[in-house]
């Protein structure tokens, strides 16, 4: 099995690697860069703990080959806060007690940012009504539950996660206005 040289832009920093072709993005982040914020839960795309943003889209990093992403922009939970200020979604998770053990939280937060962006871009979900005006999809509780359904929380903090995402969506929306 061969190796490939690859350059990824991770949290706005260019990183060059020489990786075994089979290395997942998750292992590249954790084992090669020491960015252990992104968690390995199930390693086959069921739990969402490894969610990161790839070119702005949330994806499971355990299911991505790092060498196939040459040149991509990756944002992990470590890259969300600027200076001392937390990202609005991070702040909302703290304000609403939206975790207990915290293992799923980095994935939940990256996924929530993706969900908020997707809804603001007007992407429908499985629970969005077929007939609706064009434009952003309002993030109601059922919409948030559907859109966050790829992130499992074994502590069962779902109720507070929905509250946190609701508040964060409003905060992000106001900041954009």
């Amino acid at each position, binding site marked *: *099995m*061969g190796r*490939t040289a690859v350059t990824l832009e991770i949290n706005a920093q260019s990183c060059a690697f020489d990786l075994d*072709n*089979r290395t*997942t993005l998750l292992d590249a982040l954790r084992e090669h860069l020491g960015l252990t914020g992104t968690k390995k839960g199930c*390693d*086959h*795309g069921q739990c*969402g703990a490894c*969610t990161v943003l790839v070119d702005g*889209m*949330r*994806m*499971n990093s*355990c*299911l*991505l*080959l790092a*060498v*196939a*992403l*040459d040149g991509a922009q990756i944002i992990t939970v470590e890259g969300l806060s600027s200076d001392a200020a937390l990202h609005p979604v991070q702040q909302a998770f703290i304000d609403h007690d939206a975790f207990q053990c915290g293992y799923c939280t980095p994935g939940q937060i990256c*996924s929530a940012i*993706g*969900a908020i962006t*997707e809804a603001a871009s*007007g*992407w*429908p*979900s*499985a629970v969005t009504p*077929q007939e609706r005006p*064009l434009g952003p999809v309002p993030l109601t509780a059922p919409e948030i*539950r*559907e*859109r966050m*359904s*790829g*992130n499992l929380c074994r502590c069962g903090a779902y109720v507070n996660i929905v509250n946190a995402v609701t508040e964060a969506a409003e905060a992000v929306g106001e900041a954009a206005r």
Partner: protein
Amino acid sequence: MTLPTSLDEAVAALAAMPAAVPVAGGTDLMSAVNSGLLRPAALVGLGRISEIRGWQYADGNALLGACLTHARMGRSDFAALIPALAMAARAAGPPQIRNAGTLGGNIANAAPTGDALPVLAALEATVVLAGPDGTREIPVGHLTAGHDPLRPGELLAYVRAPLLHAPQTFLKATTRTGPGRATASVALVLDPARRGVRCAIGAVAPMPLRPLEAERWVSGLIDWDGSRALEPEACTAFGDYAAMSCIPDPAEGELPLALAHLRRTVAALARRALERALS
């Protein structure tokens, strides 16, 4: 690992290394790689081939690129073209999977639970395969059944699906709330030009099943030039007819309880799919 930027380059790379595995979204492939079941000798990444990431129109059909993601197919502009495929794409797993997983991957993986497969069966869609000796076009079912498999160096490039300009539905039953694997799914499309209802049942067999007799029976009942409405009893009978043809009674003895339950699920999904398409 090679990352071709055009279909021709990808076919050339595959032809040069027939043992190489093409990878698009990787959502099915990578779980096998991570658990050590698959150690590909080489990989051809398809993510850079922009010509197969969108769609184009060709003689009343849509030519869909194999690397269209589920997320892209779920969006409103695509839903206006092929509503059932958009509904299947929105239900095809959690958002992280839909952002990466592709239409071509769903076909090539040919999982019995693949959500796009019953829709493509109901649409009678075809796949365009690009190979070292040019392209050929075969029905989706011939590929997924292994009746006419991919040849060495061949790549699934496009899916040709008709634009029917009529209501379509896709419904699935899962074992949990939210997007899980289907225990049964039903795709149903109306084809007013051919005065037909076409239906496919997914996940109950290794590949989608078409209840052809039930389709013909219900197509004959519908007033295609009028309101297209049917009595509720007719929709119920269609559901039972479709379910019975996919999960028939055994030659001897009783149907096992689990299968009887699955048959009721299929009947309810097929009835609802027809009601929604005709309402």
